[in-house]
């Protein structure tokens, strides 16, 4: 499994990539592997302002449904349009074409509560 060092990670297995005040969010390699074959990604929070840890969507694998939790407070600006037709990108390219949403951060301090790659790997026990 792969955990890029330029990303931050949440306990709920989302990753965050920061570019100015915009954060790109997806789920980690560990999370996609645990879920198995992903068949639908439902982003329910387009345009909404959410507080940290609120549900921004749902990811469905063949056998399971999981909520997606936003790891930082902010407004959901954009969702990945490719996932509608190719949800399996979350499995095959979780940190690239499998990204889920872009969020305008409202509180940069939220980033301090996230883990770096090494700490996240300890958290999941790999």
């Amino acid at each position: 499994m792969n955990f890029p060092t330029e990303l931050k990670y949440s306990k709920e297995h989302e990753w965050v990539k920061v570019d100015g005040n915009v954060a790109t969010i997806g789920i980690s390699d560990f999370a996609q592997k645990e879920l198995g074959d992903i068949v639908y990604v439902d982003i329910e929070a387009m345009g909404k302002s959410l507080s940290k840890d609120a549900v921004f969507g749902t990811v469905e694998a063949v056998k399971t449904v999981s909520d997606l939790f936003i790891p930082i407070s902010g407004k959901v600006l954009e969702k990945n349009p490719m996932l509608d037709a190719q949800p399996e990108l979350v499995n095959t390219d979780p940190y690239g074409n499998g990204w889920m949403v872009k969020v305008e951060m409202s509180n940069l301090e939220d980033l301090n509560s996230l883990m770096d790659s090494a700490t996240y790997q300890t958290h999941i026990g790999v």
Partner: protein
Amino acid sequence: MKNTALTNTHIALGAKMVPFAGYNMPVTYSGLVAEHNQVRNSVGVFDVSHMGEFSIKGEKALELIQLVTTNDASKLANGKIQYTCITNNEGGIVDDLLVYRFTETEYFLVVNASNIEKDWNWIAQHNSFGAEMENVSEQFSLLAVQGPNGLNTIQKLTEVNLSNIPYYSFANGKVAGIEDVIISNTGYTGAGGFELYIKNADAQKMWDAIFDAGKEFGILPCGLGCRDTLRLEKAFCLYGHELNDTTSPIEAGLGWITKFSKHFVNDTYHKQLKENGVAQKLVGFEVLERGGIPRQNYLLKNSAGETIGKVTSGTQSPSLNKPIGLAYVQTKYADVGTEILLEVRDKLLKTKVVKTPFL
């Protein structure tokens, strides 16, 4: 939690293990969809040793089986298998199972792992016939070698001509050097193939031999995850989903295994349902628009927004690549082609009742 004789083998193969019916069972190895497709298209192997097996013997064994099960076991010949269910006194089903006939006085019942104790107690309680009952669940391992190349795989390991064993029949023979294997043309995938009943001590040897024989077909170990998607595409009922303690086999579409030409527990009630019609029926459905995958207990609604049914099983079908499911709906919505709505989170998705099996 109990292990099967092969639990350590599954762990060594990198399986994701989950607790199921009190057993530590593999849910996937290489990935659910890959395993699913391998079984549909070629051959895969499931360790389903958690299933329960009861031996019923004696002059009156058949009378006991006839009383507790709905199908007519008197129609069985030696070497034949019957799908049937056990009814309770409350209008529901204790379990669904297979009955194997060895001889006129020797039978083998194969029951769901989650119901072993309940079934055993229920059958024992009805055994006023003096039939000899033995719970041999802990002695047997069961390997399901499923898929269109299942026969070709097992045939390499035995001199028994597998083409002479029709669907729902079995033979007793030597496979991979192991004596007394029950070679059963059954399975829960609708993909063809055989199930092999062996003693626990022989499980690893049989597993290894099957994988050697199946190598040319790209054989894969398969978990309970794809076992569920495979059976759902064929609309096979699963206890705890389509079947339970309060649902009649008539509602579940199992009229074909419910025979009123003989007496069984609570038959009067089920006969009335058959004659007077049922309020709800089990149907297959397909979700017509994107928005989510059906799951057990999701609600089905009519265009007025009223609840008209409930999902019992649902998935994204790996073979058809669309969301499918089984549900109980009010009888007037049960006709093939009826348009209904599936509630997923806060959305209502266009859904249609379709013919089953889906594939």
